[in-house]
């Protein structure tokens, strides 16, 4: 593999530096590096970040290849600047055995757009009643470290306790989709003023908050660590903040859409806005932004949830929940967090690369941009302005709420271990 010189980029939004890649590794970082024998990428004015890591992606393979496959999903990830994604376990069959997680892992390796770290189910079939073979999945070639029944809450307190205890044996983490099932029966959107007006079943904030409160206390009780998926309410933020202040080992994520959109959008009855957890209020959005800024929320995770067109082109109640997010995540974070002054680019690198890699133990990812490190990098043209056009998405699905909306920033290059997966904004 030849050498690549990224010339004149603002590394983590800070100093202008050259970065020389040799093979799979960053050889040098500094000013005025020699371009001899290297392909040169002129990066003046652009931001260089460590390759992004998504702890919460739905790749849909096996089972729902009409929505997404490991190939199309990892191409979407690369387009969005990601070099590693954690693939959620709610596939068909469910990723609750070593066989399924190895299959997903190998597909990721074969396609080579992005490292795929499978997430294993906590319970057999996501049914919430019997622990899956967590150890076997950990010992498999996929080396699973994150376990989640995402899409379903591990609502039985005893099962949750056992899972938290059990994964301590190999340093795993349980990622909880916090949703009290009885409080959200028939839920269609955030419970509040808008749901009452629209006559759509309400998903109350307390259904999320009560599970988070329980789980941080369980984690404390058994001395384990817990990760909370997609926080969506101001109250959830308060609980996580309290838990951290108490020394409980909890981490938390927020999605880009919960940083930008509110339940007011649901007035359109357009199912592109139907997502779980639901879009909340302006007050919640502001609390989530603040919490991501002050570190109460550790990471941004996309909850990329592809669905075919026909599953969204219908009435609200019949529509599938979820939206795609890999290709717009960095732009939404730029708009909501960087351009508002809440996060520096260096902090974005933390929330979207270092911290998710650390929580998920993604080897070789979320590393500093410095000599000797794996060359997993993302180059961003932050000055770019343009309307989102889903027709250009690499994902197999188009269920984005941002169609036609102007979002800033565009990933021009992505490098996975020194190999360009995206060049000039196009997949390599």
């Amino acid at each position, binding site marked *: 593999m030849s050498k690549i010189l990224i010339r004149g980029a603002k590394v983590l939004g800070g100093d202008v530096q050259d970065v020389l890649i040799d093979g799979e590794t960053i050889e040098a970082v500094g000013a005025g590096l020699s371009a001899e024998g290297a392909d040169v990428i002129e990066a003046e004015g652009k931001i260089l970040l460590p390759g992004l890591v998504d702890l919460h992606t739905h790749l849909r393979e096996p089972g729902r290849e009409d929505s997404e496959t490991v190939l199309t999903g990892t191409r979407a990830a690369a387009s969005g600047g990601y070099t590693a994604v954690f693939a959620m376990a709610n596939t068909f069959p469910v990723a609750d055995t070593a066989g399924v997680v190895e299959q997903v892992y190998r597909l990721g390796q074969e396609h080579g757009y992005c490292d795929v770290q499978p997430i294993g189910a906590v319970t057999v079939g996501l049914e919430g009643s019997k622990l899956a073979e967590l150890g076997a999945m950990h010992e498999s070639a996929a080396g699973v470290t994150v376990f989640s029944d995402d899409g379903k809450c591990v609502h039985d307190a005893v099962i949750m306790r056992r899972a938290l205890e059990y994964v301590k044996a190999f340093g795993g983490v349980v990622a909880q989709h916090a949703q009290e099932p009885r409080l959200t029966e028939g839920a269609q959107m955030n419970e509040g*003023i808008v*749901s*009452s007006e629209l006559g759509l079943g309400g998903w109350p904030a307390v259904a999320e908050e009560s599970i988070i409160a329980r789980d941080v206390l369980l984690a404390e009780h058994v001395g384990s660590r817990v990760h909370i998926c997609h926080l969506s309410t101001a109250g959830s933020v308060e609980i996580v903040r309290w838990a951290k202040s108490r020394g409980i080992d909890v981490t938390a994520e927020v999605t880009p859409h919960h940083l930008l959109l509110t339940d007011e959008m649901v007035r359109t009855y357009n199912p592109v806005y139907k997502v779980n957890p639901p879009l909340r209020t302006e007050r919640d959005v502001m609390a989530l932004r603040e919490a991501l800024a002050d570190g109460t929320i550790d990471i941004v995770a996309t909850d990329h949830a592809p669905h075919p067109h026909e599953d969204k*082109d219908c009435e*609200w*109640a*019949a529509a599938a929940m979820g939206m795609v997010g890999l290709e717009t995540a960095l732009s939404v974070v730029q708009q909501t967090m960087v351009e508002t002054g809440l996060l520096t680019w260096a902090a974005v690198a933390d929330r979207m690369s270092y911290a998710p890699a650390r929580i998920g133990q993604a080897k070789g990812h979320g590393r500093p941009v410095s000599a000797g490190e794996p060359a997993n990098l993302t180059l961003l043209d932050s000055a770019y302005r343009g309307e989102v056009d889903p027709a250009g998405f690499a994902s197999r699905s188009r269920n984005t709420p941002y169609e036609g909306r102007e979002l800033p920033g565009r990933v021009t290059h992505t490098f996975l271990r020194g190999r360009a997966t995206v060049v000039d904004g196009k997949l390599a």
Partner: protein
Amino acid sequence: MKRHLISAADLTRDDAVLILDTAEEMARVADRPIKKLPTLRGRTVCNLFFEDSTRTRISFEAAEKRLSADVINFAAKGSSVSKGESLKDTAQTLEAMGVDAVVIRHGASGAPYRLATSGWIDAPVINAGDGTHQHPTQALLDAFTMRRRLIGPDAGLGQDLSGRRITLVGDVLHSRVARSNVDLLHTLGAEVTLVAPPTLVPVGVETWPCEVSYDLDRVLPKTDAVMMLRVQRERMNAAFFPTEREYSRRYGLDGERMARMPEHALVMHPGPMVRGMEITAEVADSDRCTVVEQVANGVSVRMAVLYLLLGGNEPAVTHTRTEEK
């Protein structure tokens, strides 16, 4: 007026009064030997019912036929519509057949709005009840009934319901009738009070243009019309209230309670009435109870809505009156 009637909130005060006045004209047609107007001759109206409701469907059908429209009834209940795309498919079929208006009843809140705004179909859409969202023609017929009874058929022309005190009692949370009525009655200047156990009061109700009370007995003496809402027995299993007996003791309307209302006050019910839990037979059969009138008025109001959305500027109704003279 807007092109579609999706929500009672779509109507301005003038729109609503115009509909009520037009309905008053339409009501006169019902008294003629031949109950038919030529207004919608050659126009096709489809009654698209994804949810069973014989009463509402028959009411619309009668209205359509009295206006000489060609009527297509499409009942799509059961398994074939469990997958959402069939609403779109059905809409496109109707579009291809060239229907001039769609009356839609659907179990999912927002389905008529989607139908009207997604580009699936071009024709005006009339919401005949969607999920727990809206049922605007029900609200219009209720308002029409109140205006007739409280002001009078002729004296009421051009009038709204300013200053009238209306009480809605029961399962507000799941009631599209309550939502529609609160919107419309407020637009017409009435003061609305909702009475229900706290479990059946929607979150966010504080932003609605009405009062909320848990105490029926305190509200009744100051009420011009009380509207009893349907309480489905399965709500009991979901712990919305302890027992049927306790519900009817606190929120049911019996003769004794009715006696606390002013002389002129009406008792209304959107039907079908389940005698017992929410209303006693004594009340249901009293001459204060307007249930039967509401049914008749439903046809007049729906004629008015169809006429105004579809009939254009033809003075069909005024013409009828001169004929009568």
